[in-house]
């Protein structure tokens, strides 16, 4: 049984009684077992006359194929569990022998012919190592059974997949013909609806979120089913449509900006009316969800604006707030106006035309626009939080903190802080003032830093800010001398109206923006003199006098000049510095008397000791000095005047 095919074919044994039929209920009808004679006849029918005996193998090449067949036969016989083979009782034995003989002859003939034809007498066949047959059979069995079960599973999966794809297709079909009711259900999930008569009304308003705005904010749900069925249905067709109040149509936004005061109030109201280009509506009608969201946004903007205008009229300020048409104008700083305008554009042609004519980039204060929305939400939340459930449950309804006021003995201040709250407008004006002050401060520090190279000014802005307060640390240093010249470090807390400056030495002052600029300039001038003082300490020079505010010299328009006089370690030389914010620095060197040639030798002072008297001052031509900055120059000067 050498050289069998790579895959063994095996046949499964059946049950002892063969199943004839399996009923629909699963019951099996069995075939009656054969009688002896029937069985014999059946077996005789199965006899393979091609079967070879071992001796008939004179043609190996041909026999190979035969052997395969034979092997199969054998297996077949074994597996089918045939009744024990008894050759003695074999009735057709002679027939068989004859036929076998004939077959042998035929085979020999065939082989001879083949040899004659192919001229091949010998054929070498590799002797294969035979593994035990039954084991192979078992493997084959396993493989086949596995194949079968896999096939079954695959079929089940395929069927399921088919069904799924069918249902998906159906679903899509359903979606395509979605009906009004399912759409309504979806609408109901997002919006408040109620039935009034035969109408379905919805609620757009923020009332449930705590808004007190009197606008109704209702929309109507319309059935949009009367379309021509013959025509092709547009893709965005929706059987449900919404009818929103005409005043909430279109899109709206609030615009906050700070401008130079305009002289003419007449055309104020309409300036920003139709500024924003409406994003081009897609073909057809927009989906109800986008429609409703847009309308709700319009409503919120309206509410904010209404609230602001009400406050603008009520609040008394030095310069009254002006409400013109869709604009509120307030003057947080002289010469500047904060304008908050309500821009509402509808989709009609007129507005689209006007929107195209001018698109000037203006300094929107997006932060404030955003904050306005946030503030109104906060306001809503506050009204909502007024109605909280009482705990314990028996207690009456009421404001939570108010309930604490009695038993916790709140004092007047606490009660006041509970009750009063600033209006939207006040808050937004405060925020605008702060933003303005902050950007002005930043700008002036930046310009100062770029304009003035020596000393250097650095600003470190804090990343954590409040809407009303931000802080920055300002350092004034000289390049290369950061370690020793750090006496001027300031923290600026920029508030709403004023900037609070905390100095490193503990002084605290509040300044306006203009004052701050002057202050920084004077600090920079003082820095130079302080740096000389520090440098003297390091170089071993002695400070003879020091003043931050000298009364001598030209009058400075900003601050005061400062001055310092230092003497060299052995006292021979002295350097005097006078530095003013405006006049700049002036450096003088005093020589020992003995070195100055201009002073004529006096008769009076002949004694040697008089040589130690101080001589005259000479001004140093500072701009001709070498060195990249003031302190470096000073260090060089000191070094030059210090004897080795």
């Amino acid at each position, binding site marked *: 049984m050498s050289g069998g095919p790579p895959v063994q074919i095996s046949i499964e044994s059946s049950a002892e009684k063969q199943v004839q039929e399996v009923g629909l209920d699963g019951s099996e009808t069995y075939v009656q077992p054969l009688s002896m004679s029937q069985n014999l006849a059946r077996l005789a029918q199965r006899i393979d006359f091609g079967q070879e005996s071992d001796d008939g193998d004179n043609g190996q090449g041909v026999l190979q194929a035969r052997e395969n067949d034979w092997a199969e036969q054998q297996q077949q016989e074994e597996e089918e569990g045939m009744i024990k083979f008894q050759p003695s009782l074999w009735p057709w034995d002679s027939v068989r022998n004859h036929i076998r003989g004939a077959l042998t002859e035929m085979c020999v003939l065939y082989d001879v012919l083949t040899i004659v034809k192919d001229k091949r007498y010998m054929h070498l066949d590799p002797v294969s190592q035979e593994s035990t047959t039954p084991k192979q059979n078992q493997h084959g069995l396993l493989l086949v059974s596995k194949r079968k079960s896999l096939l079954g599973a695959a079929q089940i999966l395929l069927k399921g997949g088919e069904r799924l794809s069918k249902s998906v297709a159906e679903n899509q079909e359903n979606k395509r013909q979605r009906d009004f009711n399912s759409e309504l259900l979806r609408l109901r999930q997002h919006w408040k609806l109620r039935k009034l008569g035969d109408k379905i009304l919805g609620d757009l308003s923020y009332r449930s979120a705590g808004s007190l705005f009197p606008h109704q904010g209702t929309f109507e749900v319309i059935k949009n089913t009367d379309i021509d069925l013959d025509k092709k249905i547009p893709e965005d067709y929706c059987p449900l449509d919404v009818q929103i109040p005409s005043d909430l149509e279109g899109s709206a936004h609030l615009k906050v900006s700070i401008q130079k005061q305009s002289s003419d109030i007449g055309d104020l109201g309409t300036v920003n009316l139709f500024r924003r280009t409406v994003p081009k509506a897609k073909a057809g009608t927009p989906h109800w969800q986008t429609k409703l969201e847009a309308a709700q946004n319009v409503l919120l903007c309206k509410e904010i604006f209404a609230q602001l205008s009400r406050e603008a009229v009520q609040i008394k300020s030095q310069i009254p707030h002006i409400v013109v048409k869709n604009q509120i104008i307030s003057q947080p700083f002289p010469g500047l106006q904060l304008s908050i305008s309500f821009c509402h554009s509808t989709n009609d042609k007129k507005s689209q035309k006007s929107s195209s004519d001018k698109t000037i980039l203006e300094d929107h204060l997006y932060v404030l626009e955003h904050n306005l929305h946030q503030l109104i939400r906060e306001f809503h939340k506050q009204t909502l939080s007024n109605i909280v459930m009482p705990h314990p449950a028996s207690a009456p309804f009421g404001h939570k903190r108010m309930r604490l*006021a*009695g038993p916790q003995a709140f004092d*007047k201040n606490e009660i006041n802080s509970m009750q009063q709250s600033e209006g939207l407008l006040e808050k937004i004006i405060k925020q605008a003032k702060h933003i303005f002050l902050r950007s002005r401060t930043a700008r002036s520090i930046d310009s100062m830093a770029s304009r003035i190279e020596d000393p250097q000014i650095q600003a470190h802005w804090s990343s954590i800010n409040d809407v009303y307060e931000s802080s920055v640390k300002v350092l004034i240093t000289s390049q290369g001398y950061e370690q020793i010249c750090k006496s001027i470090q300031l923290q600026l807390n920029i508030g709403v109206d004023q900037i609070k400056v905390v100095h490193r030495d503990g002084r605290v002052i509040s300044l306006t923006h203009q004052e701050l600029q002057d202050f920084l300039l004077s600090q920079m001038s003082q820095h130079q003199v302080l740096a000389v003082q520090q440098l003297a300490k390091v170089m071993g020079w002695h400070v003879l006098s020091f003043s931050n505010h000298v009364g001598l010299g030209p009058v400075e328009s900003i601050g005061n000049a400062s001055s310092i006089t230092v003497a060299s370690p052995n006292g021979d030389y002295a350097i005097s510095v006078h530095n003013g914010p405006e006049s700049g620095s002036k450096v003088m060197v005093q020589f020992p008397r003995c070195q100055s040639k201009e002073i004529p030798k006096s008769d009076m002072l002949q004694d040697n000791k008089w040589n130690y008297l101080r001589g005259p001052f000479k001004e140093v031509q500072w701009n001709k000095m070498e060195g990249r900055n003031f302190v470096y120059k000073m260090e060089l000067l000191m070094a030059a005047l210090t004897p080795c």
Partner: protein
Amino acid sequence: MGVTCVTQVPLAEGKSVQQTVEILTRKLEQLGAEKQGTFYVDCETYHTAGTNVGTTAQSGKLLYIMHCSEHPLSTFALFENGPCLVADQNLDVLMIKLKGFFQNAKANKMETRGTRYQFCDFLIKIGTVTMGQSGRGISVEVDYCPCAVPGDCWNLMVEFMQSFMGNHAPTVPPVFNSKHDALYSPADTMMQYMELLNKIRKHQQGTVTGMRL
């Protein structure tokens, strides 16, 4: 609300109540204190109606109901040396309901009214104590708002009180001793007022009975 000290200032030599108050306020204003409206503290006395049989053994015990303008939404109910209940104003309504059990001794109603001053973080209230119609004495309340622990700021308060009361500055109030390190509460102030008013009343009654004798 910080730590508060309530004390009585005796009348200046040969001066009336009104004149003594004026002297005090003038000193305060000289310090730089600013006037900030008025204030009041009132105290009503309740005692158990009739003779209670059975459970109640506190027939002699008095219940005080107090109000104060600094805490306008609160009503304080307290016993001498006993617990002090802080409640909202509906407690007054309840006291009416309890009329059959607790009776208001109206004749004993006392109050002190006067001016409220602010000086830096101090609140100073100088009031005239009245019982019935007549002024009976002067109360001075000093409140140091930033601090909540009596033991921490007592020295500081004494220094301040000496600056306008001279040697009439008080010794440590007993309430302070009981809660030296604990947080001070408004109820403690009411306790001090109650003790002060009681003292003045007893003194008055003593003199009245003495006069009768």
